[in-house]
């Protein structure tokens, strides 16, 4: 039962390792288990969960695991059982090695000894018994009464705490504030020595001084600079309105990030055609070909848009939603040209992935790698731009016939 909790947590996607689990066993075995499930909830959390973004997952796992427990659990027996047979079939060799390094027999033996001692001295009250501080185990004189469901003192029980899921807002796949976006964008850098004010180059100075028979000679070199040039193309208006706040945050974070060598932004409506706009109202525009002309492979492009439109807006001549465009070239062709010119390009979509089956989204996804506009999605997109993740759009299904949308 006790070890089940370990697998239960892993089943929920928490990457709890054996080392961390053993730390919990150590803490429990050394007397921290006298308290109720509340204490166990916090104890296990601070030892097994290392990111606040995982707190919510932990809460869900904890709630579902302990929800049905009605009787008292004696945690001490559970640990004993587990120590007797700790190697379960699905434990990896690496983990097995870690367990063996601990010398389990010895651990078990010592644990038993202290337990026996404890029974004998049960009346002795709250004296702490240890074996000189070297043992991984110590315990309180009071026999650990085990974990009881239903915390003491009228406070909320741990299950209730877990069920209230107060850390839901910290989940990394849900929220995005300006600062988090800024932090994510900070990972987007490519350092190179460039021109600029010089700074002392220590290695070269040492080298030069050594060649100079110890007479100190100072060498200066330009500092390292970020070379990333970023163009952000944002869909505004229409179906993007519900996502305004999110997109504003992304935009302001990117704008505030001063570590890019160059940062440019343009706006479009639904799809890119012959013109890109420098203002949200889309009054002031410049030809897309001019914008593209100034780009080369040193640039990265981030599209932000829902790619949600009628398929003909992408596929037909004259299909632009703003009829005055009368585009002579289908939108998809513009997108493909941008992709050809700047392969370091990604598409961030504020629409949840499960809705991506819409035809227009599918089509755009086949041109650009597409990610959800969440913290996780943004991180993945940045990994693509950094070259640490394959830069691949979705492959068109074999039976797709683009013409049918035209």
């Amino acid at each position: 039962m006790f070890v089940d909790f370990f697998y239960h947590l892993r089943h929920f996607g928490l990457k709890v390792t054996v080392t961390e689990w053993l730390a919990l066993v150590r803490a429990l075995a050394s007397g921290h288990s006298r308290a109720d499930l509340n204490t166990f909830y916090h104890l296990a959390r601070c030892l097994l969960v290392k990111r606040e973004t995982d707190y919510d997952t932990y809460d869900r796992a904890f709630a579902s695991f302990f929800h049905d427990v009605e009787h008292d659990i004696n945690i001490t027996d559970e640990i004993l059982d587990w120590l007797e047979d700790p190697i379960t079939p699905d434990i990896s060799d690496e983990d097995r090695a870690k367990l063996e390094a601990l010398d389990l027999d010895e651990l078990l033996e010592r644990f038993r000894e202290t337990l026996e001692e404890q029974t004998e001295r049960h009346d002795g009250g709250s004296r702490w018994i240890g074996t000189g501080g070297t043992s991984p185990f110590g315990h309180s004189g009071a026999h650990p009464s085990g974990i009881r469901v239903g915390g003491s003192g009228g406070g909320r029980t741990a299950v209730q705490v877990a069920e209230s899921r107060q850390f839901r807002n910290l989940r990394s796949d849900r929220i995005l504030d300006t600062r988090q976006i800024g932090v994510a964008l900070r990972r987007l850098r490519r350092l190179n020595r460039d021109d600029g004010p010089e700074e002392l180059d220590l290695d070269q100075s040492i080298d030069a001084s050594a060649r100079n028979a110890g007479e100190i000679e100072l060498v200066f070199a330009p500092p390292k600079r970020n070379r990333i040039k970023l163009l952000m193309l944002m869909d505004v208006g229409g179906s993007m309105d519900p996502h305004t706040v999110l997109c504003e945050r992304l935009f302001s974070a990117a704008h505030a990030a001063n570590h890019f060598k160059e940062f440019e932004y343009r706006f479009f409506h639904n799809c890119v055609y012959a013109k890109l706009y420098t203002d949200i109202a889309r009054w002031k525009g410049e030809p897309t070909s001019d914008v593209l002309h100034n780009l080369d492979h040193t640039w990265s492009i981030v599209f932000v848009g829902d790619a949600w439109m009628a398929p003909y807006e992408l596929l037909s001549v004259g299909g632009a939603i703003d009829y005055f465009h009368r585009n002579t070239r289908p939108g998809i062709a513009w997108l493909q040209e941008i992709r050809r010119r700047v392969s370091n390009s990604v598409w961030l979509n504020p629409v949840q992935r499960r809705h991506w089956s819409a035809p227009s989204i599918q089509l755009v996804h086949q041109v650009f790698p597409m990610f959800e506009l969440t913290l996780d999605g943004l991180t993945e997109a940045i990994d693509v731009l950094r070259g640490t993740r394959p830069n691949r759009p979705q492959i068109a299904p074999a039976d797709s016939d683009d013409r049918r949308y035209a």
Partner: protein
Amino acid sequence: MTFNRFQGTDTYLATPELRNAVNVAIALEKPLLIRGEPGTGKTVLAEAVAESLGLELISWNIKSTSKAQDGLYVYDTVQRLNDARFGDGDISDIRRYIKHGPLGRALVSSKRVVLLIDEVDKADMEFPNDLLHELDRMSFSVTETGEQFTAHQRPIVIITSNNEKELPDAFLRRCVFQYIAFPEKNTMANIVRVHHPNVEDELLKEVLLRFYWLRDLPSLRKRPSTSELVDWIAALARGGVGIEALADELPFLGVLLKRETDVEIALSARR
């Protein structure tokens, strides 16, 4: 091994779960990693732990240029080179030029100390990994002299992070982790009382109402934190602002909000 050693201090209110995490970290002799919004009292925690246990506090404030090695010791070669050129001092004794850093001092100390590694995420991505060995073994050697130092008493290590960078898994595995959530109203009232014991209940209630209203504005770039609230109350007290004034306006808003756009957002939301 005993639990429940740290109970908080007069000036620092620790929630039960935070106390629990501190005590687990002390008992298991693992570093305690504290994460949370700025202004939730992460750094002050280390001071409180040191104070309540009567131990010396050694602080190591991490900067973007910090190296793990600097925390252990620095071999001041430039000084030695200078001494050699100008004939000052005994340059044959290298130990004279070994300067212990904060981590080094915590390890060589004859007494148990509290070591605060503040804002660990400011440094390079690999920085935490470079610390792993020393934090595990609590010992280090000085290559230049061949000396080996092992801690007599494992220091209590408290590490804070503002979440600017993701920390490496190997590092996280070795830590006890606690996230300090932003305090809710009742806790906040207690915290404010520690700093301003004389503030009236009614005023405090009104101030907190305004404060949490501000924090909940969705489009705010930088939400005001505890320290800013404490400053705000001090400003209100100095300025002699009463409850009535708070109802219609937000005096000294600049103490809470540091960005022009945020001030505009707050003012327009008032209407």
